Every structure is written in structure tokens, then in C-alpha cells.
């Protein structure tokens, strides 16, 4: 039971992070004012990509469970609660700031972004690594540690990969209106 609760909480946080990473990876690509529809698509894709990237963790855990010998549920719980100890407060602050950005007036929205959302995006790789380090130290099981490292790889890869897969405009060159007429 505890294992399921911890795994469920981590999966929910992972998918939420994937959705937000996908959203971020699509921002600043077109210059359009209204990008809400695009944001939704990007968030869905980020969530799906994160699910795919976390699949190896699930396969590893399942393989571990099917292997002969006792399945070390306690090691998973220890590692998982270590991850949650770092990720839950981070997620709570980010969600509160996002709520402030969306609900409160523009001055509060600006402050939420300037003081929390921007800096928290910057430290996200460090927070992800810190959580995995704590989880790994607490796990005391090599396979569980490997699972933690695979999850870390997924978290670090999701945003750049989503950008490359769906939103990178670099290979498209300049848009037609912006060149020919002006050049002599």
C-alpha cells in the first residue's frame, strides 16, 4: 500500500513536471499574443513525453519485482519518500506562484514570476538532482538507485527533447515576409 501511495505521488509530480516542461519548451517561439491553444497542446505533449521517458523506470521496477528473491519494498519507500521530501515543497511553491500568476492582478503576477517562477526554473535541474541524491542515499539497494537515476535522466531530458521534437524553429529559416522585400 505505502509503496503504491509513494509511487503514485511521484508519478503525479513527474507528469505535472512533464506538462510544465512541455509548456515552457513551446514558449517564446512565435511571438504571438494569444498562445493559449498552443500552450495546451505543448502541455499535453510534455506530459506524454514524460510518461514515455519514465517507462524505463517502471520496466526496471517490474523486472525487479519479477526477479527471484524478495522484492525490497522498503528500499523503494525509503528512496521515494526521500525524493518526495525534496520535490513536494518545490512543487507546492511553484503551484502557489502559478496560481498567483493566473488569479491575482498583474503586479502580483509579475512578482510571482520574477521572484519564484523564473528562479525556480533555473534551479530545477539542481532540485531534481538533490532529490535523487537523497533518495539514492536512503535506498540502500543498487536497482532502486538505478531507477532513481533513470527518473533523473527523464526529468533533465524532457524540456530540451520536447523543444527539439515539436517547437524548434531553427531549421525553418526566416519566415518569407521578413526577408525578400527588404533585401537588395
Amino acid at each position, binding site marked *: 500500500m505505502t509503496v503504491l501511495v509513494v509511487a503514485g505521488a511521484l508519478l503525479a509530480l513527474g507528469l505535472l513536471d512533464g506538462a510544465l516542461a512541455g509548456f515552457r519548451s513551446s514558449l517564446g517561439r512565435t*511571438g504571438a499574443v494569444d498562445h493559449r491553444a498552443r500552450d495546451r497542446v505543448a502541455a499535453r505533449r510534455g506530459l506524454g513525453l514524460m510518461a514515455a521517458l519514465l517507462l524505463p523506470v517502471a520496466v526496471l521496477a517490474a523486472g525487479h519485482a519479477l526477479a527471484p528473491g524478495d522484492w525490497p519494498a522498503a528500499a523503494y519507500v525509503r528512496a521515494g519518500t526521500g525524493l518526495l521530501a525534496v520535490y513536494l515543497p518545490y512543487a507546492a511553491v511553484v503551484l502557489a506562484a502559478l496560481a498567483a500568476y493566473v488569479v491575482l492582478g498583474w503586479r502580483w503576477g509579475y512578482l510571482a514570476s*520574477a521572484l519564484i*517562477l523564473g528562479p525556480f526554473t533555473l534551479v530545477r535541474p539542481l532540485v531534481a538532482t538533490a532529490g535523487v541524491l537523497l533518495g539514492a542515499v536512503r535506498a540502500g539497494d543498487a536497482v532502486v538507485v538505478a531507477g532513481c537515476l533513470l527518473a533523473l535522466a527523464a526529468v533533465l531530458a524532457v524540456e530540451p527533447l520536447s523543444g527539439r521534437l515539436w517547437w524548434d*524553429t531553427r531549421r525553418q529559416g*526566416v519566415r518569407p515576409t521578413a526577408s525578400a522585400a*527588404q533585401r537588395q
Partner: protein
Amino acid sequence: MRADAVEITDLLWDVAADGVRRPVRRSAVVDRLRATGQHGAARIVARMPATDDVLDPDAVDALGVRVHCELTRLVEELQFPRRVAATLAPVLDRLRAAGPGPVRVVDLGCGLGYVVRSLARSGLLGPDVELVGVDLNPVLVAEAERLRRDEDLACRFVHGDALAPGVAVERPGRTVVVSSGVLHHLSTEELTALVRAQAGLGVAGWAHWDIAPCLWSTLGAWVFHRARMREPVSRHDGVLSARRAHPAPVLLAAARDGAPGYRHAVLEGPRWHPRAIDVVRPLVGTRP
């Protein structure tokens, strides 16, 4: 950093007053950057595609549009359209009370015109306000116009020099000039010229937003450009803009010099009690 350090995007286009574009030598840009000790920036430019030492204009244009697309994300997070609307509201009310007819807001150095397009979309300034964006870079003007068409917005964009009087100003007494993130591109002489050009026409007023140079804005620029920007050019230029922005006394001196008949202020909190909201703040001028 040396006082004469420049942003990479200030060196990539050479457009004559008539809009004709001249080739830009990569080695000249690299040498210029090295001369001011900007070795990282020089390396970024040295990697840009060129033929016979001339920077590939298509690649430069594509880069410019990408950099400005990234910038719109920051402009949105910094709430620029709301800031403009909040500061202009009393000025626009005064102009409406003074007489009938439309009021025009001209955004100088509008880039991709995000502020103008966003204000057109939200209608925050009111239905009687005409919105015009002006930029020196014809590539950005064309792209701003394309984006305007895409979203069917009531505003327009023209190519022009902010320092040349009269660009997009037809009824000066009912025109308010704004800009965002442009002042730090100008020398103090150019600041004076900018203000003198508008005052000479007799525009109703202006509000030019720029970064307030301090430790917090430099730190904030670094954090946001690392967290949000992908292009090395954006990251370089963004942090440099915070470091080379003009302090309020310099802005005020240049404004008083260029427009002695106007009332001037830099709308920011006291130095001993800096406000987070004032990381970008306007130099405002109003005709008495």
C-alpha cells in the same frame, strides 16, 4: 565590462536610412567585440554562417526573429502591456477631456511589436486609441506586421528611426510616444536627440521603459536569460542590457537637455527602498 561594450544584435544589421541593407562583415563584428573585451560574444559571432566574410543575411534575419520571439516571452512576464496601460491611463484621460478625436500611441523600437499587438488585442487603452509600432530593423517590422495579420489586430507597423522626428506622428498634440527596452541602446547624446525629436514636434508626452541598473536587475537578467532564453545571443545581450542601462539621473539630465519645456520624471521607488516592480521603469515626459 567596458563602458563601450555593445550588444551583438546592435552589430548584425546595417540598414541605411532609405531601408537599403548593407552587407555586414563577420570579421569586423568579431574585431569590434574583441576590442571591448567581449570575447564570449566574439566567439558567438565567429560561429555564425558567412560567405566570403559577409554574414549570411538569411541566417542573421532568422536569428533576429528567434531572439525577438524569445524576448516577447520576457516582455509578457514583465507585464509590459499592463505597465504601459497603467501609466498611460491618466495621460489618455487628459487628452480625451481636452478634445474629441482619436489619440495615437506610438511604440518606438517596437521589435516584433508585442506590446502594441497585445494592447490591440486586450483593448486596454480604449477603442479610440490608434496603435503604431516603429522599428529601425525592417525584418522585425515585416514580422510584426505578419503577426498582426495572423491575429487580425487593429494596429500597424512602420519602418523608421526613433531619433528622426515625425515617424508615425501626424497630430502631435494627440500623440503619446512609448518604448520598452530601447533606451539602453542609445548613448546619452542619442537620448537627448530622441527626446528633442519628440519635443520639437510637440507630442503630448512620452513614457520610455528601461531596466533600472542595479545589482537586482543584473541578477534578475542573468537568472531570466539562463532560465528562459535559448539563443546564446539572447543570453549575452540580455545580461549586458541590464549592466549598461542608464541610471535615472542620466536619463533625467538628457531629457531636460532635450526637452526643457516638458515635465520629467523617472517613475521608480527611492534608492534606499528599491521596489521589485521597478526593475523596469519609465522615463516620462509631459507637456505642461
